[in-house]
């Protein structure tokens, strides 16, 4: 009888202990599994960081990576001793450090690439500005350019000495300054090549229009040419006292005026040709119409003659519209006269 309680107690104890034991074994196994998993992930991160650092050629982050590897070794020791929870904490710490090592190296490297690209970009801009700066640009602009060049040289020296932040900032400043300088040069001195080209071309155009005027006979066009010639002479003699933009605007205006004079002469040419052909036709049929005896035809002939004379006067004075209207009227009258005279 006394044995029964004892057996019950033992059985109860065993009944409690065994599940606990089993449970704790299961927990331990789960923790172990988790440890293995975390440990494996950290190993991958460490390997990736090692590859990044070794392939970058830059040492930045390598000390931190070594620390990460040491902590990972400690984590392994913990695991081997069955202390999985501490092992998990350590391996996570190692993983953080390995990530930071890779990031430090990446930031350093991309900064190096970034700085190098910025320096090269500014160098190209310096070359471009120098190539497009006119010789007589003036001391101020030259001084600005020289300052920019000197600061770019300093930026390059900082880069060579691995002082990347001042190298980047300085080179960017030079780039911004050069862009402002280009704007300023274009606004004050302008693009000298372009301006010289514009002046030369306008000069040649004036000569062309002068040649055209010899056979044009359009007074209005001639007035325009004289006006443009005078204005152009004033600009050439007064260039230094007029801003670049003002010169350019005036040249454009003169160019447009010359274009309209050319159009007038061309219109004049066409009308003159029409008039000459009509006159030739008139001369050819006038005698025949008079001999026809048809009074209506003769009256129409006279009207055509009047219109022709008017057209000639209007064409000479440059009134192309009135000239064209009278040519048309003369054409109609002459055609009718020819029909009535049986021609």
């Amino acid at each position: 009888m006394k044995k029964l309680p004892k057996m019950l107690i033992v059985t109860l104890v065993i009944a409690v202990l065994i599940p606990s034991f089993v449970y704790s074994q299961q927990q331990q196994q789960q923790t172990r599994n988790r440890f293995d998993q975390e440990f494996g992930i950290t190993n991958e991160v460490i390997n990736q960081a090692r590859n990044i650092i070794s392939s970058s050629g830059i040492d930045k982050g390598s000390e931190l990576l070594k620390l990460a590897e040491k902590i990972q070794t400690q984590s392994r020791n913990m695991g081997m001793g069955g202390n999985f929870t501490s092992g998990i904490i350590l391996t996570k710490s190692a993983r953080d450090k390995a990530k930071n090592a890779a990031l430090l190296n990446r930031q350093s490297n991309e900064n190096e690439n970034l700085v190098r690209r910025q320096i090269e970009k500014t160098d190209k801009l310096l070359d471009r500005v120098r190539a497009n700066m006119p010789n007589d640009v003036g001391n101020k602009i030259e001084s600005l350019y020289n300052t920019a060049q000197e600061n770019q040289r300093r930026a390059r020296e900082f880069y060579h000495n691995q002082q990347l932040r001042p190298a980047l900032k300085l080179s960017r400043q030079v780039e911004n300054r050069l862009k402002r300088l280009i704007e300023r040069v274009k606004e004050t001195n302008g693009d000298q090549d372009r301006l010289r080209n514009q002046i030369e071309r306008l000069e040649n155009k004036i000569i062309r229009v002068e040649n055209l005027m010899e056979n044009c006979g359009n007074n209005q066009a001639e007035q325009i040419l004289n006006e443009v010639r005078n204005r152009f002479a004033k600009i050439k003699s007064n260039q230094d006292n007029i801003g670049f933009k003002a010169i350019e605007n005036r040249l454009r205006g003169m160019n447009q005026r010359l274009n309209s004079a050319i159009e007038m002469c061309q219109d004049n040419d066409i009308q003159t040709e029409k008039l000459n052909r009509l006159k030739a036709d008139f001369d050819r049929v006038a005698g025949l119409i008079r001999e026809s005896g048809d009074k209506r035809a003769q009256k129409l002939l006279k009207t055509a003659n009047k219109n022709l004379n008017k057209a000639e006067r209007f064409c000479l004075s440059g009134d192309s519209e009135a000239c064209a209207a009278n040519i048309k009227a003369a054409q109609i009258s002459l055609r009718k006269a020819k029909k009535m005279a049986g021609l």
Partner: protein
Amino acid sequence: MRQIIRLIYLALSLYIINAGVVIADSSGGFDLRAGIGYDYISQEYFLESEDTYLDPDSSLKSALLKKDYLDDKKGFFYLGYSSDSENSKNIDQNYEIGWEQTGELFRILGTARIGKTLHKSQFVGNFRLELKENYKGTADPGEELVILNSNFDYRYRLSNMVDLRSKIYSESVRFDTVESYIYNYSRYGIELGFNYFTPNFNSISFNSAFEIRDVPDSNQLDYALFRGNLGYFGSVFGAYLTADLGFESRNYNQLDNRENYFLISLNADTKMPLGENYFLRARQNVEYFNFSQNDFINDDYYLARFGLFAGQSFGRFSALSTFIGPEIELLNTDSDYSNDDDYTEIMAIFGLDYFGSKGLFLMVENKFGKRIYRNKSIYRSEFLFERANIIGSMGLFGGLNLDILLSFDLEFHDTQSDNSRLYLISGGLSYRF
């Protein structure tokens, strides 16, 4: 190197003596400029390195550090010669040689420009030499160097409307000591292009270039580069437009096309006059960078910048010009790994230019704004910034001139330990004889 310096020193002395005689005669084209200057570049920032991770309790973690990159007083003189530009029969010549010295370093600089115009052709040759040496103590790596630049430019006027251009150029850089960042190299290139002037006086330009770089100590840093540019300058609907479309492709001598890239950029600047003194200006810059190999280091990106400014000009030839307006900058990385760097910067810009007639000029620009990182990252903190630049030059009396340059770049981060301040002060007092 020292032998070369001695020879240059001797040549310079003879040059100066000769120039002194010619200046006395006052009919030559010599120009002498001498002066003193001061350069200071300093940065304040919190320590950011692996030290903070190695020892989290380190007192260095929260210390504000100040680093002076440059703090030099210097003296300099330059001697130049220009030929008589009025006489078109002469070859145009400009030479200049200069000596600069600080407490530890001296620098010899020489430039030469030779040009000749013959009917429709124009030839120009440019040369530049720079020699830097430390005469006190031991030189740091990269401190002592020789740089030689040269280019030959040929232009031909095909017609009133078309100019053709070509250029060959070279650059050679040699250091006394080489290291990972410091390497000797040579670049050689050729450029071809043309300018076309339209009937209504605008201009279109095209340039293309091919260049190679040779680095004797490392094959991997050699590259071949090709670039092209198409530009426009002229009026459009009453506004003045300057636009530039560029393309660049660079191929390094590395495995798997590492570091190879191509870049496309578009820059445009439009100025619309509003009445006699006012104007509106719009600026756009767009850039796309693509690396052949996407890796953790090299990310493709898009960068865009847009600004709109209102301004006013004053005085004869718009001597004084001011402008103000907002600008926005966006960076978008196209990365397989991380987009921590994507940001938007919004800023207000104020600028002032004064180009006076009595030797005074001043250029001021101030930017105030904020950078916002679009993808929250523990490695990046947003910040306000203040960036200012002041450049000025003033003729004092006679040939005496004062030049100053002041610049600072301040960042105020959400994470205080990321704050940084960069200062640059440079000044010079020179006399031109």
